[in-house]
Structures are given as C-alpha cells and as structure tokens.
C-alpha cells in the first residue's frame, strides 16, 4: 500500500449518475475487492478520502467505476483529464479465488458492481447477476458480455432489462439450477448481502461478501468502519471489506 499521485486519464459517464474513471497511477497488484482511498483535493475540503473499489489495474492504468452520491463523488465526476488526485492503496482484503471444483457466482447491486466485475474478469468463469432499479442504471453491459466463460444475468426492478425483480431473486433461481460446490461473491446494499448470505447458507454454498461502511482512514487505525462478526468487531477497511458471509452478524 502506498500513497500515489494519480493523473486523471479519462472520466466519462457510463450510466445514470455513474462514471468510469481511468487514472494513471502505479499501484501494486490488487485482488478484486480491494479498494483505494481517494483524496480529491489539495485543500482540506472535503476533508476525508473516499473509498472506491478497484475495477482494474493494468500497466499503470487504474479503472474506477463510481456512482455520484454526494459531495465527494460529484467533485470526482467534475474532474477532467490531467487533473491530479492522490490514491492510497490497494487497501483491504479482497475475494479469495474459487477452488477448481467450485462453481463461481457473482452478484452485484447498487455501488457493488466494481469489485464483482473485477472478480468475474479475473476468474473468467461462472455466472454473474447484476441488479438495478432500471436499465439506465446498468453500466458496462457490453464489457460484461465480453467476459468469456461468464454468463451474465440482469435483474431490474422495473423489468426494463433482463428479469423483473431483485438480484437475489435471480440468485435464488440460478442456485436452483446449479450443483454444489459453489461459491458466491456478493457486493451491494446490506439487504442484498444478507439475503445472498441466507440463500448461500440454504444451498450450502460458500459466500464472500464485500461490505461498505463509512470510513475515515481506510487503513485500520481509526476503528470507524467496524462490522459485527461472530468473533467481535472487525474493521471493514483492513480485515475486510471482503468477509465470509457466515462470520457476519447480520442483525435485524
């Protein structure tokens, strides 16, 4: 992990409120699920860095895929080619590879696509489900189609693309067609992760979830980002963001 200067090479809208940014930045090799803490300006405003998963990293070019939510991501969307950011990373613990005998299932919702897509691209086999409210929320559809060996299913709540319904419904359908052993990689809203974890348990599948929590440091020193696990609080930024779903205490 280092603090690198990162030059914006490209920053373009790829879906509703969603941007793909390419940075020129020398990172150490990463595992999907790992993330960067991006510092957006040289001044102290905004003060905290923003966590974003690494979508890809090749030959000094790092791709990030992000949704504009609040102030930080709006600022990011306004960055133009040649502007400079600072990127701390790769941070955290990424997904583990599937065992050779395991069928791999990837499921993403909300801002959870980048680490899942990164994992699907890395492993190159299995089934991927992407959930969204509507068609316009789904970025990089062609790119996902192009991953050889991975079958892509979209689930949209308004039925505008793929099946009508939520991603975990699609997961349920898919699991009914698969044979164990199976590993599920999930990233997205807490509700989705919880549902995926429960489906995985029912199916007897291993399930790894990448969890989002508010962070201050991103490298383990402030204890902001804890999640309850069966062995007590764990820091999402350094002991995660990827956890075995069976270790998480899901709550309500």
């Amino acid at each position, binding site marked *: 992990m280092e603090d690198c200067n990162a030059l914006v090479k490209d920053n373009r809208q790829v879906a509703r409120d969603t941007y793909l940014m390419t940075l020129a930045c020398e990172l150490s090799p990463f595992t999907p699920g790992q993330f960067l803490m991006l*510092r957006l300006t040289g001044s102290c405003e905004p*003060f*905290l860095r923003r966590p974003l998963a690494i979508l890809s990293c090749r030959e000094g070019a790092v791709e990030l895929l992000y949704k504009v939510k609040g102030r930080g991501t709006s600022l990011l969307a306004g960055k133009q080619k040649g502007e400079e950011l600072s990127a*701390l990373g790769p941070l955290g613990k990424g997904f583990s590879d599937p065992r050779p005998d395991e069928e791999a299932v990837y499921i993403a919702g909300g801002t959870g696509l980048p680490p899942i897509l990164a994992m699907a691209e890395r492993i190159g086999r299995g089934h991927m489900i992407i959930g969204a409210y509507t068609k316009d929320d789904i970025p990089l559809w062609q790119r996902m189609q192009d991953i050889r060996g991975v079958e892509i299913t979209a689930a949209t709540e308004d039925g505008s693309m793929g099946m009508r319904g939520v991603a975990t419904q699609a997961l349920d359908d898919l699991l009914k067609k698969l044979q164990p052993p199976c590993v599920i990689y999930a990233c997205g809203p807490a509700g989705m992760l919880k549902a995926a974890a429960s489906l995985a348990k029912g199916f007897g599948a291993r399930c790894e979830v990448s969890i989002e*929590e508010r962070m201050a*440091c991103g490298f383990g020193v402030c204890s*902001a980002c804890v999640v309850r696990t069966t062995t*007590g609080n764990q820091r999402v930024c350094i002991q995660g963001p990827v956890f075995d779903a069976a270790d998480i205490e899901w709550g309500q």
Partner: protein
Amino acid sequence: MDISTRLAPGLCLKNPILSASGTFAYGEEFSRMFDLSLLGGVVTKGISLLPKEGNPTPRVCETPCGMLNAIGLENIGIDAFIAEKLPFLCTFDTEVIVNFFGTDEDEYVQMAQRLNIDGVSAIEMNVSCPNIKKGGIEFGKDPKILNRLVAQVRKSTTKPLIVKLSPMVTNIGEMALAAQEGGADALTCSNTYPAMAIDENTWKPILGNITGGLSGPAIKPIALRIVWEVSRQAAIPVIASGGATSWRDVVQFLLAGASAVEIGSFSLRDPLCFGAIIQGLIRYMQNNGLESITEIIGRLKTA
C-alpha cells in the same frame, strides 16, 4: 540544530511531533508505511481495564474542514495491550505514550498502576470521554474532581503523567491548574469538541451515537487559543492537539506555547504527513537561523 523537546523529568522527545490518540491505533498499520522511529513519540489509542466494543456505526462523519467521530473508545483492554501491542511499539526508537481512561477513580488508578512498567515512556490520561458512565464526564469538567483524580493517579505511578483536557469548559486555565496541582507533568490541549451532524433527508443523526467529537483543521483556531491561554497560566509543558496539518501549524502551536504537537485527524487523510512535517520544521529553522526549538516555544510577539 536541536529539535528535541522536554515534556517532563525523564521525558524528552527527539522532536516535537507526536501521533494522537485514536488516530494511530497501536502503531502497527503506520509502521508498514514508515519507520515509527522518526516520530518524537507515539500516543496510543485510549486503553481501559477491560476491552471495550465502542459505539454503533456510523462512527465518523465529514464536516466542513473537519470530521466527527464517535468511536466510543473501542479498545482491546490493558491485558491485550501489554501482551500484544506494547512489545512491538518498544522495538522503535521513539517514546511510547499510552493514552488511557477509566469509568471511575479506581479504574484510573488501576490503569496507572498497570502501566507503570518498562516500555511505557509516559501515560496520557483522558479525562474528557463523553461515553463513559456516571462520574466519567465530570472528571474533565470540575476542577476539584479533576484535581483529586490526578492526585490519586499521580500517587500510583512513577511515569511522567500527561493530562488531556477537554476544550469545552468555561475556564480551561482553571482546569489546567487543577491538573498541575494534582501532580501532572504536562497537559494535552485538547480533546475533541462535542458536536453533531443531522441528515435532513432521514431526519436522523448521522452518527450512531447521535453526538460525536469534532476534530480537524476546522478547530485549529480554537486549539491555538487554548494552547496560548493554558501555556501562559500553567508552569508545566503543554502538548497541542487540534487540527494541525503542516509544519506551519506546528510552528504556530510552538509560538503559542506548546512544547510538542500531536497530529491526529490529518494523519487519517495523509498518513505520510509526519515525515513531511518534521522535515518542514527543520527547514524552517534552518532558513530562520534557529538553533533550538526552545527559541520558538512561547515566543509569540504580542506587544
């Protein structure tokens, strides 16, 4: 050039730059980024007698030029600290200052006794924890109670004793003198400011704990005033804490009367800032022909 600074009999830092409690954990993560030996000292996360789970999330929140935290003093407890963390910290050529707190006088005293061991360079007593049960919060708010508590802790340890004051009091000078008379060797000025953030969409507080402590550059002007006020009243050294981000801020705190400066929230944002700050300070002294930081400390020109 001499940038060492003296905080107590037997506690001399090789330079005035310290980490701050709660933004450096127990040093391990930072040690993977730079050699901790470059620091004047390391201040650990606040430790208690028993491990503590802390508050519900969200525990942090961004504010204009600052942040709120309501970690709730999550820590691994004194036993695990001594067994697992202290030996590692002792491998570095830097002072180890252990921040601690208790829920009552007895716990403070027990903590001081337990920390009276090799490897601990000094102890920093946090008397401004908003999250501990009855009695706790009053330690840092009432000079009589503070004085008594400090005196009890003083009797329980031979280590240099630093008392970390709460900024949100009517008369901080009075609190400083109460701690000094209780036997404190130095004062840290100061902890975070009770504050809050609200989400106007959900109508809920942003922090799980409702309120939290404000830190970062936003509060630096207040911290500077507090350091100036306390250092003119107290006879013991003052350690500045509050919003420092650069060697410029460090020089300002020294001029106001601080003998050392803790870098807290800013190191969450820029973990490699410590080296740059120390280098900047050295360059500043070179450029201004200063031989020793004692030529800066408290030398604000007000006339």
